[in-house]
């Protein structure tokens, strides 16, 4: 297992380099360092001298990927790409174009993101799986039909509707919790109830249908018929056998998103004024802050790779037939 993990980590290096190259190419395809300087300097009264000064100060006065004026390795290392990317592999994200510490921002913002994402994820998972098992149990009955119609309807509604509708109903009409905002410690609960509730309700359609399909497929297998034929109670059949055997596809979809919970949700954080990481990347793109964009893309790809490795590891826990090779 250890060798397998080492191998996967080594595979991750070229992937991360590739992601960096693509991010760099895409970013500088639409923005030039001059554009970045003009935006940072405010757009009014910007002189060519000020643009050059900004670029020199921020390290954007070098060639982008190849420095023909230098010799040897410096042709590659004395470039914007190398200077801005190399240190990320030791998780030194440097500073944004506004001079602020990106690492500090990430460390500060990930907690509010987690405060919403983790309860939404756990409560949602429990609800979706329970609901899906219920529908699977009562398949082909009016309950199943009603449940499926409910799920399809829920899937068809925009997440924005849930947010605005939830805020209107719970916070404005019933005045039960604040519409938006955030606080630290235990005082955070009143700000988290509504986004978590909306997050769970908003995901019920797609997730329940997905899990229901998995469970129904599993319930048609021979071992389930055998279990019933032996006279096992339905609860034992469902939770002891069906759920356990359906865990592989469930884990495939679930474990991979766990690390990405750090990255937060853009719309939810924006509407509820949650100071998380979700909006950080979008703000950086709007501000043409390459430092933050590359850091967030790097972090996102890294966490995704971690999620995939964790998924592989989790397979061995739920299915003894799976081996690391």
């Amino acid at each position: 297992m250890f060798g397998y993990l080492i191998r996967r980590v080594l595979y991750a290096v070229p992937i991360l380099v590739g992601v960096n190259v693509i991010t760099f190419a895409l970013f500088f395809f639409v923005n030039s360092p001059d554009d970045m300087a003009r935006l940072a300097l405010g757009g009014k009264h910007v002189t060519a001298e000020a643009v050059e000064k900004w670029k020199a100060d921020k390290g954007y006065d070098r060639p982008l990927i190849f420095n023909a004026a230098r010799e040897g390795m410096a042709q590659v290392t004395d470039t914007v790409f190398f200077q801005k990317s190399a240190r990320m592999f030791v998780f030194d994200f440097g500073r944004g174009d506004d001079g602020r510490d990106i690492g500090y921002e990430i460390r500060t913002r990930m907690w509010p993101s987690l405060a919403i994402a983790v309860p939404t994820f756990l409560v949602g998972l429990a609800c979706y799986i329970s609901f899906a098992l219920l529908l699977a149990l009562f398949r082909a009955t009016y309950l199943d039909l009603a449940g499926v119609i409910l799920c399809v309807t829920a899937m068809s509604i925009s997440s924005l509707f849930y947010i605005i509708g939830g805020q209107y109903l719970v916070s404005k009409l019933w005045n039960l919790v604040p519409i938006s905002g955030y606080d630290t410690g235990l005082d955070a609960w009143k700000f988290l109830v509504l986004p978590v509730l909306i997050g769970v309700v908003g995901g019920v359609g797609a997730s329940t249908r997905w899990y229901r399909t998995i469970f129904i497929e599993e319930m048609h297998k021979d071992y389930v018929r055998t279990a019933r034929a032996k006279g096992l109670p339905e609860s034992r059949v469902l939770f002891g056998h069906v759920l356990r055997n359906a865990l592989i596809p469930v884990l495939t979809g679930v474990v991979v998103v766990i690390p990405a919970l750090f990255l937060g949700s853009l719309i939810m954080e924006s509407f509820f004024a949650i100071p998380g990481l979700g909006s950080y990347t979008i703000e950086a793109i709007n501000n043409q802050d390459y430092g933050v964009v590359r850091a967030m893309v790097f972090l996102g790809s890294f966490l995704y790779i971690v999620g995939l490795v964790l998924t592989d590891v989790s397979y061995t826990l739920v299915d003894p037939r799976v081996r690391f090779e």
Partner: protein
Amino acid sequence: MRALDTFLLIAAAALAGCQGPWNNPYPAEERGRNILYSAFSEQPKHLDPVQSYFENEIQFTAQIYMPPLQYHYLKRPYELVPFAADRLPTATYYDAGGRVLPQDVPAARVARTVYRVTIRPGIYYQPHPAFATKADGTSRYIGVPAQALSRYRSLGEFEHTGTRELRAADFAYQIKRLAHPWLHSPIYGLMSGYIVGLKGYAEKLREAAADAPRNAYLDLDRFEIDGVTVTGPYSFEITIEGKYPQFVYWLAMPFFSPVPHEAERFYRQPGMQANISLDWYPVGTGPYMMTVNNPNRSIVLERNPNFAGEPYPDEGEPGDREAGLLDDAGRMMPFVDKAVYSLERESIPYWNKFLQGYYDASGISSDSFDQTVSVSATGDVQLSEDMSRRGIQLQTSVSASTIYMGFNMLDPVIGGLDERGRKLRQAISIAVDMEELVSIFRNGRGIAAQGPLPPGIFGHRDGEAGVNRQVYDWIDGRAVRKPVQEAKALLAQAGYPDGIDAATGKPLVVYLDTAMVGPEGKSRADWFTKQLRKINLQLVVRSTDLNRFQEKLRNGTAQIYVLGWNADYPDPENFMFLLHGPQSRAHGSGENASNYANPEFDALFERMRNMENGPERLAIIDRMNAILHRDAPWSFGFHPADYTLTHAWVHNRKPNKMANNGLKYQRIDPALREQRRAECNPPVPGPLLLAAPPVAIAMHPAPVTWRRRERASALPARG
């Protein structure tokens, strides 16, 4: 269901434990306190006064820093009054030989101007660790080892603070900071053209900084600027090249606020956390100081205990007394103890929280416009019944801004000063109905522009005297846009009868270059196309991203574009320079995006820019406007109007488009606010509890069926 009931009961009990409305987003200990609540939608990037320029930055720095001058809060037209200075600065003009010239001397004879500023004694900085001293008088936190500093994660963790009196040298220090090689002041380029010796000073500093470690403390006092002299503890002089009367307006901006060198020495020490900097924690002498800077969530300003106070103005413009704006005349400011600004990115939650009483003031978004105000047939704006019942007040003001549709004068089709080009542009100006644009896209919030100068700026004329006769007729006491037939006639005279190029026989196609995207951009683009179709002109909209759009303007390859300009200061020079030939964007890096160059206009501009306001200057501005109406380098768009709503508990709020330091004038009535909040936000848990039984009934068949299945046998019982 038992779990749901339990949860609801616990939640209800927890919420009932809170006093007051359950949906109050603020801590219970703030209830009833003299706090003003506001919001910001975009995080400030820079709070260092040498860099902060955007509105979302200056709304904070203007409350903290104290430049020599400020704008009178109530008077219109805008008027400069002393702030840190004890009187308005005097300007002395000198010729090339160093001889003093009279005040009304023509600008051509002036070689240099010296501004003498004296500041009031007894102004003290806010409490700050940079000023903390030990018993022996040495600094407590400056010059300490890096390890000792690295343990502090925020400014509030420093145990000791101190203060000192403001000195004239602090203003001189800040002017030096404009040239700092690691700071990027947006006005350095402009000021280096005026302040004597600033450019040379910047070069010396750049050389000195070349070998210094990044972000280390740079001793700015190693060199001096020729044009900045400290003449005493409370006086200094600034020498500028030539005559530039608008320079005094810059002295009312945070760029010229005092900054103590101790602050920079303190922040730029090895070991200091990256986010403990002057860009993050300002150090000022103004009425407020920043005590919390968490731009991801909230920014808090609190009363500066060392601010000696400032009397509320005792005179204003007509109507101010009746509006209650002089009720506090002579009382010492600031009135509010604390201001809490919360990050609120979306307009819907902001608006709803305003209605609930959790924000004290709000603008009006397009979504909520109809439920908020009604516009009568005569154009009068009235609050809706619901808003009036809530005690909400409406304030309207026209911005010191102009949005315009510009024509690139270098373009072979749309440009040029010949009759063909003029008539083509005049025809387009008539066809593009700016009143309709304001009505459709801004809910009527704005007034059609008759020239570049917005109301409130010297030279702007209301009524018939200011009408653009090329586009409007004056009928029954109001400006009426000329009929489309006249535009068509002009088009024919330009050589494009019915939109066909007489020379080629092909339809004339013109191009609108824009960075407008999304549904709003698309609908605007469609609207412009429709406008030109009225005169049978084909408009092709070339949408692109902001960078490419700006590049087109810089290269002079755009044809028709839409831009806007917000005044830096209330002087006609700050608008007319947008059409000054030498400031062409394509031939330099100026702000004249139309690349308009008319020698007569340029000569008048050169005269007007250095004149004091008066009849002679007004006559020149009238002539300049007439030239612009004829040449039509712009289709003068509109001046946006701002609508602001305030609750009944907010007093002394008057829109001021020049002054950003309005917080100190505002007064609130916290008791009334508490009362209204309680009335507006009674918790209504009933619907949730009522929803429980139907859910239980709907779910009831599930356990019944489950039990039946569990009890059923594999085969049906034999009968």
